[in-house]
């Protein structure tokens, strides 16, 4: 279950992770070992088994649709790396 360096780079791009050459090599090796271990799940016959996405059978937890005060803008922006008036500022997309 070896994962190739191309697959590591593909997954890193999907996950928006810049990787150094050294990291690509290290992660390819480590992820191959981990993937081999977790691939064990495919040994079982699960054709009649439904998936579980959540441990409790909670559904439709509604809240009243009422306006409530929200954070003041200065608090919303308190941790922002860059702010322009009432906007988060970022490099051009």
């Amino acid at each position, binding site marked *: 279950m070896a994962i190739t360096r191309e697959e590591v780079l593909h997954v890193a791009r999907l996950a928006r992770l810049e990787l150094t050459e050294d990291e690509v090599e290290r992660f390819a090796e480590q992820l191959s070992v981990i993937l081999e271990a977790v691939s064990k799940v495919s040994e079982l016959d699960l054709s009649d088994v439904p998936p*579980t996405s959540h441990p*409790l059978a909670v559904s439709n937890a509604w809240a009243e649709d009422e306006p409530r005060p929200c954070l003041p803008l200065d608090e919303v922006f308190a941790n922002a790396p860059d702010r322009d008036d009432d906007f988060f500022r970022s490099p051009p997309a």
Partner: protein
Amino acid sequence: MSASIDTRRLTAEEARGLLDRGEVSPRELWDAYRAAIDGSNDELNAFLTLVDEPEGGGVPIALKDVISTRGIRTTAGSKILDNYVPVFDSTVAAHCKAAGMPVLGKTNTDEFAMGSSTENSAYGPSHNPWDLSRVPGGSGGGSAAAVAAGLAPWALGSDTGGSVKLPAAFCGGVGLRPTYGTVSRYGIVAFASSLDQVGPVTRNVRDNAILYGIISGRDENDSTTVDVPPVVVPVPGNLKGIRVGLPRQLNEVEGIEPGVKAAVAAAIAHAGALGAEIESCDLPLSVEYGMPCYYLIAPAEASANLARYDGVRYGLRSPGDDFREMVMNTRHDGLGDEPKRRIMLGTYALSSGYYDAYYGTAQKVRTVIKREHDALFERFDVLVSPTCATTAFPIGARSQDPLAMYLTDLLTIPSNMAGLPSLSIPCGLSDGLPVGLQLIGPQFAENTLFRVAAALEEKIGFDPVPVRLR
């Protein structure tokens, strides 16, 4: 008039008694813990951030640094949140505040609670108070070390695959992973949302029940929370009528230390002497397939949850010529190896062409694990096993081998996948290091776990003060 306060031995309940009777002032109590922290945090690295002025006149508490605290830096053990100061309280922090409990500080954790030793913290590992060359367990090693060394009377951790139970076991404390949905996740730095659950780390079972009572309950800010049965703070008694199951796959796991096996066997004998009915049983697939199942589902959820660290709204931002480059550089510079591994593993497991084979299959295995546990709880009230096959391992022993580190949680993962409550209590020493006993119950059976644990605690008579600190 200040009574002398021995923070190593004082339970939270006793501390509250001292305050209620006016024998100690809130400030004196706070100062005693602050002095203990100042005396040994350098060697333990249990706290990442300290609070200088107490807010509230009750029994102080330490909070794992994934728990958002208004105005108090919350890093989740990551450089990407190094300068992050929440503008709101998590629900559990708000519950502590409402109970008058001042926060002593924020405790060390593996980065984003991903790890079993605190060695994945961007701020260096915490050290085990029983042996400073060993890990305190993880991810909530800072909270467990702080409680064991008397730097806090009690603390909160968070448990996804075992991050409350394992550190409690390694440090000789009592750690509860509550039933999923009983404690709000609002304001907890998210790792794997279908598994994350906050729980108390304490020096005895009664304190654990008291703290669980304070933090649990339905919360309109977390739609996965439910109404919680009233918590009964336990009085040690007999165990007549309690049916104890011993799953062979947990109790006879490969690589179990002889000293661990002996301490667990002694605890089981106590349960029998107290009147419990004890019988072996099986979890044929849950243990063998639990770890692989967990390391697909938890990273898949983590890869989605950690997408929010993009350098835009809060946290680190690294320079980049355009938006995409800024995001990629920020995540490269701000995230450590373990979050990167799990993000990539999860992204891979969810990616087109692999989704059914990995994530989809793991969700079905999760059903199998849940059904196996449900079937056992038709016959048993509680399942018992070691919390971990070994005691605390030396710092560095597993840090270069991610898979070896993952296997540390082999015994805590299965019941977590099933959303069940479980409690680790100390049951003895193996070569001078604490051994954890894991008690697992059906959903919402925390009171049963507390009752069984309190009875065993009294019989075992474990001294929670590390030998080197006595």
